[in-house]
């Protein structure tokens, strides 16, 4: 059986059978009605041969389901282009080693969540000692001086502090995306650095759950990182980018 890249379906135990498993909760008391509702929902989602293999009472009128089904949908894999940060990712120890070897000094990285956005979760996950999901933050890197300014920082303040500390890179976090506030804030920050003639002085990195590399590049950043990013991803990118800039002779 040949793989047809134009018609990619999930693989259960044979090519393109479309088999998938899912689990979810419905706010219906456990019983035949809830089970039928789960089944109909699965069919509506495009599953053929949907089968509710497990139903459990969660209490308070909620029911849990495990459902198997075969999706009729498929994806044309030849039609996908992905824009992502393509540099190698090194672990913390390697990042420290590379910085020592390539720069012979600590790198300074400053970060903040700008504008009205009060969420520090993103910037904390990348910068704070504790990090996220077992991945230490930049504060933990021996060869990085990390300055986390927290949330609700004015773009002007972030830029001023970055100049004062002579930061190598600036991380701008945006979590709230209501009314496209993140796009406005990020654009404003880039414009500010350009107006001050400082755009080339810093590596600019944007981050947030609803951001990706493509969008960040469009907004004038050097990179963008979304969900699932850890400190080592950001550190590796910054190192690569600084080296690249240096070889282009744009530094100092």
């Amino acid at each position, binding site marked *: 059986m040949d793989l047809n890249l134009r018609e990619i379906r999930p693989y259960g135990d044979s090519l393109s059978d479309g088999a998938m498993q899912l*689990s*979810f*909760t419905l706010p219906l008391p456990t019983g035949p009605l809830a089970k039928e509702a789960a089944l109909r929902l699965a069919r509506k989602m495009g599953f053929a041969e949907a089968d509710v293999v497990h139903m*459990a009472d*969660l*209490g*308070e009128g*909620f029911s*849990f389901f495990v459902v198997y089904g075969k999706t009729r949908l498929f994806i044309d894999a030849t039609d996908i282009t992905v824009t992502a940060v393509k540099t190698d990712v090194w672990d913390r120890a390697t990042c420290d080693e590379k910085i020592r070897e390539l720069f012979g000094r600590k790198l300074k990285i400053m970060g903040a969540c700008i504008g009205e956005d*009060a*969420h*520090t*979760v993103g910037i904390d996950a990348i910068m704070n*000692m*504790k*990090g*996220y*999901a*077992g991945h*230490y933050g930049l504060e*933990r890197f021996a060869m990085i001086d990390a300055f986390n300014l927290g949330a609700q920082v004015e773009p002007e303040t972030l830029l001023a502090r970055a100049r004062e500390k002579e930061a190598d890179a600036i991380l701008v976090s945006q979590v709230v995306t209501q009314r496209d506030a993140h796009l406005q804030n990020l654009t404003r920050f880039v414009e500010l650095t350009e107006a001050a003639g400082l755009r080339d002085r810093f590596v600019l990195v944007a981050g947030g759950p609803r951001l990706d590399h493509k969008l960040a590049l469009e907004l004038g950043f050097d990179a963008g990182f979304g969900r*699932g990013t850890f400190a080592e991803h950001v550190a590796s990118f910054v190192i690569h980018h600084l080296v690249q800039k240096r070889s282009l002779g744009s530094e100092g």
Partner: protein
Amino acid sequence: MSLLGIDQSQVQRLRGTADEITRQIAPLLKSHTTVTVERAVLRLLGLDGVDHNQVPLPNVVVNHLREKVRDGASTAMLAAMLHTRASITEVAERVARGELDLHRLPAVPEDEIHHLGLELATESMERIHAMVRERRSRMDRLPVREQPWKYVIVATGNIYEDVAQAKAAVRRGADIIAVIRTTGQSLLDYVPYGPTTEGFGGTYATQENFRIMRSSLDEVAEETGHYVRLVNYASGLCMPEIVVMGAFERLDMMLNDSMYGILFRDINPIRTFVDQFFSRMVDAAAEIIINTGEDNYLTTADAVEAAHTVLASDFINESFGLAAGLRPELLGLGHAFEIDPDLEDSFLLELSQALLLREVFPDSPLKYMPPTKHMSGDIFKGYLMNAMFNLAGIWSQQGIQLLGMLTEAMHTPFLQDRYLALQNADYIMTAARHIHDQVTFRPDSLVIRRAHEVMDKTSGLLESVRETGLLKAISSGWFADISRPADQGKGLLGVLEKSDAYFNPCKPVLASRLGLEKEIDTWI
């Protein structure tokens, strides 16, 4: 039965060293008060409510008093009450409206101030003790299950949504419900007021939210036949105030660590030490089980290398706790299952550590935290890791088993995640119920050798801390690899040196209730 053969005289020596460490900083605790201790005293004397700008009245009063707080915030308030013949809340409302200046009161005899203060503090103790009696009587009628108690969290941000999820979890066997606080509340220097429906990654700790959850859990307990314990978080800049609110609303457990805020929230060390002591006296009077936060050490430091720092910190938390009147059965000392699962024999190392904690603190209901650091989006592996954690929990007879969620590190738990976690624990803990009495270890086994190694390293660390001093050890990064100097950190401005006239009417009343009359002057 001792499985590890830990030398009890070594345990007693470590306990002695921990006592020396904590007593070294007692003079610092005694000479200082904090804005939140003073606000907690005002709350104990009956002050509650907010002004027209939603600023809590205890904050209004303490902000208004400024330098005068060094005399104890209640002193001027009691004088004003005597002078105006108004209640404490009426006085505070007048202050809030700018109708009364506590700096311009006519002189009131000190003995009258002290007399009224003691009277109100005694009433407050009665109010707290009524809650203790209520808890005991409910537990007699609705007995709690045997340990390990299954502890799950709710964290929707909306107290009413939390209630539905908590009740569902109780119907599926949860013994303890913890309402996670919204991100950032630990750094607020006031306690929000009223019911709340918006939070991020958790729900605001307010007295009204405590009341709403308490009554809902009491309701569902009547149906299941088991009392349900309610937990909230006192750690942060308002530790003593939140404990007072919890004591009034019959919370059963409080996260109340002596060092967590310093290390993980960058709160000033002196502030935290002063706050933890007073708040733990209130916990003790209210028979609230405290939970300590040693599990967090292992999120920054390596769980194999830093195992002894957890045990050392437990000894320090125990020493502070006992000094504040908490009996061993009210000390939910923390530890965690955080060793890299890819490490060979990781389970044996986890089991060794869990058994060790059990053997060192036989009368305390240890708080055992599930894997978090090595949880990924692989929910299937995560579920398996939680099963191994539950096996270690039942094997080592933990008191408080904080059930792991398979979606840890992704999002706050779905309703179904909590159900799956309870299923996991029920299965493992039923299947291996008596494993502790059935298995012994060879003297040369890894489990026993590792436990002795951790004990020896703990002993070394505690002795070094005693030589160096706790504050210097913390500023040198000995705990959790994080350095926090004593003259820095959040909330520093709220640390005040007491004046010679300082008076806290709750101190003698609490001390007498807890039988601490002899030692209390060493500490506060």
